[in-house]
Every structure is written in structure tokens, then in C-alpha cells.
């Protein structure tokens, strides 16, 4: 009489494992990078994240030695996240401003920049060491 196609589906799903992708920690830690540090030290357990695909655009990684200070990356950064330091002729990248587009990576003539696979980056201090790449 009343067609309810969701009914058999709901009953079947009752017995299946939930598909929730759990948060890494049981309760929210004050700083994710601090939490990762304590996991590395062996003091806390983590729900492993799902596998990362290749060529994932994570946090930027910068090789100071190969950089020539041409400032091409600053020209294309949409978020103005890269700062040029004139004294050393090198860059400083502010990860909190970065939009992870990877444009700087593509344009760098020497290949000094590449996107790593790190994505668990949340922290409450925007000037902490993990948020500035130089």
C-alpha cells in the first residue's frame, strides 16, 4: 500500500559496520601538531587516516639550497603567502595563508618547491614553527 523502499535498506544497514571515518584522537587535542608529536613519541594512539592518493597537495616543502631568489613564485601566489627576505635572497612561506594550489611549485625554474603529503596541520598559534616554512 505505502511504498517505502528505504525500509529494507535501513534494516539491512542496521547490521553492517558504520562507514564513519573517525577523528584521529578520542577528544579534540589543543594542537594537532602537538598531538602528532606525542603519537610519534608513543604517548598517544591515533586512528589512522585514510590512504593519501599520490600527487596530493599537502604542505609546501622548500629547498633553500637550490633557490635562486627569482621571485617568480611570489608573482603567481594567489594568496600572497610567500615573503621575500632581501638579506638572504630566500623565501619565507606562511602556511596559514597558503591555499595549497601548487602554482608556485609549477612555476619555480629550479624545482625548489614541492607539495608534501602532510595535511594534519591544525594549530592555534599562527606563528608556530610548523606554520612557517623557510
Amino acid at each position, binding site marked *: 500500500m505505502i511504498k*517505502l523502499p528505504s525500509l529494507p*535498506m535501513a534494516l539491512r544497514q542496521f547490521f553492517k559496520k558504520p562507514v564513519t571515518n573517525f577523528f584521529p584522537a578520542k577528544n579534540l587535542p589543543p594542537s594537532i601538531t602537538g598531538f602528532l608529536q606525542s603519537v610519534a613519541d608513543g604517548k598517544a594512539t591515533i586512528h589512522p587516516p585514510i590512504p593519501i592518493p599520490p600527487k596530493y597537495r599537502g604542505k609546501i616543502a622548500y629547498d633553500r639550497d637550490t633557490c635562486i631568489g627569482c621571485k617568480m613564485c611570489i608573482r*603567481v601566489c*594567489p594568496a600572497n603567502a610567500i615573503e621575500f627576505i632581501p638579506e638572504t635572497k630566500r623565501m619565507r612561506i606562511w602556511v596559514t595563508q597558503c591555499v595549497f*594550489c601548487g602554482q608556485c611549485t*609549477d612555476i619555480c625554474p629550479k624545482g625548489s618547491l614541492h607539495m608534501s603529503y602532510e595535511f594534519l596541520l591544525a594549530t592555534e598559534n599562527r606563528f608556530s614553527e610548523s606554520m612557517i616554512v623557510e
Partner: protein
Amino acid sequence: MSEKKAPYELPIGPIHPALKEPINFTFKMNGEVVEEVDFAPGRVHRGIEWMGMRRNPVQILHLCDRICGICGVHHALVFAQAVEQIAEIDVPDRAYYIRTIIAELERIQSHILWAGVAAHELGFDTLFYLAWQIREESVDVIEYITGNRINYGIMMFGGTRRDITPDMYPRINQALSYYEGLFDKMVNLFLTDKTIAMRCKNTGVLSKRRALELATVGPTARASGLAMDVRVDSPYAAYGDLDIDIILPEVYRDETVGDVYDRIVVRIFEVKQSIGIIRQCMAQMPEGPVLAEEKYAKLLLGLKKVAGETFARVEAPRGEDMHYVRMNGKQEAPEMWKVKASTYSNQMAWVEILRGEQIADIPIIVASIDPCMSCTDRVAVVNQEGEGGILTKEYLHRLSVEKTRRMQV
């Protein structure tokens, strides 16, 4: 309960659980029935065009991705097309096909997201969770291809930044088979369910004539029977080579009513159409480069010198999305950039379809045209004193009367 129900005003928004984005609705109600609707968008205005006029085109491409989370890559695509038209850059064929594949993947993900949101507005949370769980597969494939789930950053002037190599095909095929297998289940759950049919049939009806007069676009127009689709009418990217039908509600129902149910039908069947298009693209993809100009420095230098104005349009998941770009050759940033998103054309339909409906149906009708206010809000109204506000006709009339009096003195 038998005395005459006094008319009152019910505000919905800007913050309301029924609305996914802030819009200020004011309804004049009589009991439970809506008599008149007024709405004021403009609450998600972020000044994107202002930002765009201070950046060079490569930076604007990444800005376009962030105009909207759900239809972002279409904005980037249409901006890339516009600049390519001005600069007369020839895009290689392989890049056209890759652009098509990414655009269709985004369409799948957007329509499934909308299906879940519509179910949530009806109070049917089971389908909401199911739809978003199904959507995960398409977003995972997009992450595999482009490197990120949203804000793909894959468009570039003259092609795309990444290639879809043949070793990626198995993963994409796996996702497509997943969706093909689930399609019947989706049709069964959404379209044969009695409670959804009770709520959605003959609700929010937009007749074909009114849809044409109100200039609606996209699935909203197609659900009312208008056969318009930018992919078929003025093909871009690889659509010219592909075999595409325009999806109208007749694929499932016997007649076109133009109600909320028709819009659900059109969107679910468009998911199936997108799967077919991606399979066609993967079969037909030619070899070749994916970028016309590999060196970005040369590209930027070239873009600095071009001049001209153009507009380009694509079929975003919500309808026709149009960008107008003017470059004057003296500066890097465009002189003028205007985005006309699809919801801008569709939102006037709200005034028509909400009239005479009950409060209970307001959320589903508002959600049925798939509003994306992030795409839409481009202009804020500022009056002469610099305060924000709406200029009413009486106010303008009064201003002109005062000026006349001043001039007569």
C-alpha cells in the same frame, strides 16, 4: 481555530536551518499559506571581483575555484575560456577532453550533494546520509586526479595542469561502475518513495511559460520542459564531439509538470548522463600535450600584452554560468571582470513558485532550484551616504522631488 487567521510576516533567514546559505526571506503569510515572498540576497558577498582586478590572470584562476565550493571548477573553466578567447590561445584536444571529464565529475558530485540536501529538508535524514556517503566515491576520484577534494586547481590557460594518464583509468572506471550499479537504487529510493512523492509532487510548480519569462537556466528550466543546455546549444571543451541528449522529465515521468519532483528526476538522470559522457571521453581521448604553453613565465608575459573583451559561458551544475572579462593590454590584471552565476537567473523563480504554498514546503522549494548564493552575491547596494541598504521607489522619488525643488529656487 475557526476565527479568521490574521496575516503576519514570517522571516526566514538569514540564518535558518532550512537554508544552506544566508538569504533574507520575508513571507507574508495567511495562516499556513504563503501570500507574498520577498528576499534580499547579498549576504555572502566577499568582494571577489574586486580582488580579481588586483591580481594577474593566473592568480585569478585560483580565485575562481573558490567562488563556490560545489561548482568551483566550472568557474575556473569559464574564466580560462574567456582569457583564451582574448589571447587567442589554442588549446590542445587532449586538454579539452580532460576538462570535460573533470567538469562532469564535478556535476556528479554536485547533484548527489543536492539530492542529500533535499532529503534533509524533507526530514528524511536516512537518504541524506546515504547520498553523502555515495558522494564520497566521486570526491575520492577527484582527489586522485587533481590532488584535492574541493578547489581542484587544475585549469590553466591553454589546457590543464595535470594529465589523466592511462594508468589512472582503472580507478576512474571503478568509480563509474560504482555509480552505475547504484543508479537504480537511487532512482528507487528517491523517486518511488511514497512520502517523498507526497511532499514533492505538485509542489512549487513552475510552468514552462513562466520559466521562459523568468529566464531560468539549468536543471530548473529543464524540469519545467525547456530544452536548453549550454553543452548542446553552444558546445565548449570536448562537448562538440560527444553525443549528448538534453535531460527532460519525460525520461521518467509521463508528463512534465515543473514541480519539485521533476527537478529531482532531472538531476538524478543527469548523474547517469555524466557517467556516460565520462566513459565516452575516456574512450575517445586523443594523444598530445595538455598545455599549450608550458612555460608559465612566458604565458604571464603574453597575457600582459593582450587586449580585448569577451564573455564565455558553460553549463555549471546549476545552470548557465557566464563570465565577462576585459583586458586592456597595459596591466596584468583585467580591467573588468564580472561573474554572472546560474543562481542569479534562477532566484527570481522563487517569487513565483513560493506563492500559495505552505510553510512546511518552503525549505524544499527553496532548495529545489539548487541555490548557490556564494556564486550569486556579487553586488551590494550602497546609497549616497555610504550606508548599506535598499533604495526604495518612494525614497528615490522623494530625492528627485527635492532636487527639482532645489533647482527651482
